[in-house]
């Protein structure tokens, strides 16, 4: 569809939020007691932050929850029955105020979940999701969206993208049908653009991702991996805060006769991730696991899923207990 651009005044924005949150689930960022930025369902508008650089966790759980039931089962003496999850019950959710990197991540996730066989759990959640993104007027040393083909105001993945204007109002880019339908339902709140400048942060480009991708071909055996992963302690923090990491585990949990099969987030950084029952482990050292993480995002995914597996949000690096800085490593990688 043809995209369009409107203006929404600060007061109207509040009205829009309130009206949306009165009728549906709105997932918006707030600053929690412990100063961490987290997304919450339907917080009051006053609570919603427009001043955050990044939330601690990404918003991927809206489409790929950390735990998701795949089906329920019941075991009788010999008979077993399976009950499907009613995906139609998945509610419509408005994701509010998420930044362009996080919104672009939905495309990366889609490239995995809808590649080859379509994962209905993901697709259904995406179908019910409307993203009202917010361009970034703040950034920090961990941000590197510009290195992965994005920008503080990338519209990728957003249905509507709000960008702050100097006077405190917002420019609204209406990017999809879903976005348009929201704007249409609240058309009284939107005005024509005024020509006011948007306030955007600048994020310095640290590396050229295409160059990285091409370097990674044939870099499998490079000593780089061992040298640069010595510090890595093998936790799953980077994968769990990452907006595009999609690895998961499938488990059963039974109580009495009944139980559920669910999937939950997993991380390729864990030492047991690829362990065979025999005791053999194809990725038996941390360097192999670190390599997998970078390779997957910058080589395998572009190759197979036609999507980069990174949106430059910087969470993995800011959240890493030992400062495994991915941008730094990618910068180094493009020059090996």
């Amino acid at each position, binding site marked *: 569809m043809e995209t369009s651009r409107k203006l929404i005044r600060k007061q109207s924005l509040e009205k829009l939020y309130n009206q949306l949150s009165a009728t549906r689930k709105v997932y918006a960022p707030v600053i929690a007691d412990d100063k961490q930025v987290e997304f919450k369902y339907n917080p009051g508008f006053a609570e919603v932050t427009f001043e955050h650089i990044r939330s601690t966790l990404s918003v991927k759980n809206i489409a790929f929850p950390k735990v998701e039931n795949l089906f329920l089962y019941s075991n009788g003496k010999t008979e077993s029955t399976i009950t499907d999850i009613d995906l139609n019950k998945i509610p419509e959710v408005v994701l509010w105020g998420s930044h362009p990197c996080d919104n672009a991540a939905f495309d990366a996730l889609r490239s995995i979940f809808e*590649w*080859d066989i379509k994962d209905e759990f993901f697709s259904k959640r995406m179908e019910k999701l409307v993203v009202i993104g917010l361009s970034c007027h703040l950034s920090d040393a961990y941000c590197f969206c510009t290195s992965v083909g994005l920008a503080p105001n990338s519209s990728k993945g957003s249905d509507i993208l709000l960008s702050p204007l100097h006077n405190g109002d917002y420019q609204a880019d209406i990017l999809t049908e879903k976005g348009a339908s929201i704007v249409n339902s609240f058309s009284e709140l939107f005005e024509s653009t005024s020509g006011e400048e948007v306030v955007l942060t600048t994020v310095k480009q640290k590396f050229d991702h295409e160059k990285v991708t091409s370097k990674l071909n044939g870099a499998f055996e490079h000593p780089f991996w061992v040298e640069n992963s010595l510090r890595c302690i093998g936790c799953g923090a980077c994968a769990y805060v990452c907006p595009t990491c999609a690895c998961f585990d*499938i488990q*059963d949990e039974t109580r009495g006769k009944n139980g559920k099969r669910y999937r939950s987030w997993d991380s*390729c950084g864990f030492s047991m991730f690829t362990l065979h029952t025999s005791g053999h482990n194809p990725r038996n050292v941390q360097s192999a696991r670190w390599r997998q993480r970078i390779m997957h995002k910058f080589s*395998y995914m572009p190759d197979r899923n036609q999507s980069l597996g990174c949106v430059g949000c910087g969470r993995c690096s800011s959240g890493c207990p030992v400062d495994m800085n991915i941008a730094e490593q990618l910068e180094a990688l493009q020059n090996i």
Partner: protein
Amino acid sequence: MSENIYKPYLMEIEQIVEETPDVRTFRLKFKNTAEAEKFSFKAGQFGEYSVLGEGESTFCVASPPTRNGYIECTFRKAGRVTKGLANLEVGDTVGFRGPYGNTFPIEEWEGKNLLYIAGGIALPPMRCVIWNTIDLREKYKDITIVYGARSVSDLVYKHELKDWAERPDIKLITTVDPGGQTPDWKGEVGFVPMVLEKAAPSSENAIAILCGPPVMIKFTMPVLKKLGFLDKDIYTTLENRMKCGFGKCGRCNVGKVFVCKDGPVFSYEQILALPEEY
């Protein structure tokens, strides 16, 4: 309602064969006949077998697509799921998702000699293709099967080995490791590579299919090369750990290659191109 790709077919255990003290073969029948009719698979493909409450485990379909109405799987009691499977009885329910993965290119092999080499519990993933080609016997020339196990009691499919041995159109060589033989053992005694070298099947117009523990593969490959087999004419299967079976969960890849999608069947030529991550 759209398709839930994680939902298994419910299968009923129709028959159980105790192959060895800890290896069993299940014959599974679809509970839902509509599902049975829709279902088809090819030699080499695998599936996710589940015990509801214990989880899923990945094995190849061990029966050939030429036998309709059921699938078979053979597993060794090792982890939580296989222990759960081992607790089941005829009539109990097993979940099955699949088929997944690629297949043995048996159409390409038509008109060729086939040499199957398997060790221990690696015969099951090969049994499907063996039977498949035997069932289409006239399309292939000589079929030779070399199968070794640690001891006589570790040999699986004992009754089928007997059938194969009796068939004039199949050459079967069975062997057990030194010390693993029983007094009435009539097969060879020795490790698979040595037995293979002794038998020295011709590589002329031949395909070799090789499955077994890493140490067996390691010592059998040079023998095959010596016999003149080309890398592209040797096939094997990889069995990396996987959860989903269709390229999403992120476990099974060897470099760029997804074992669940691009495998499990690989030619040795392909294997050589892979990074060492299997």
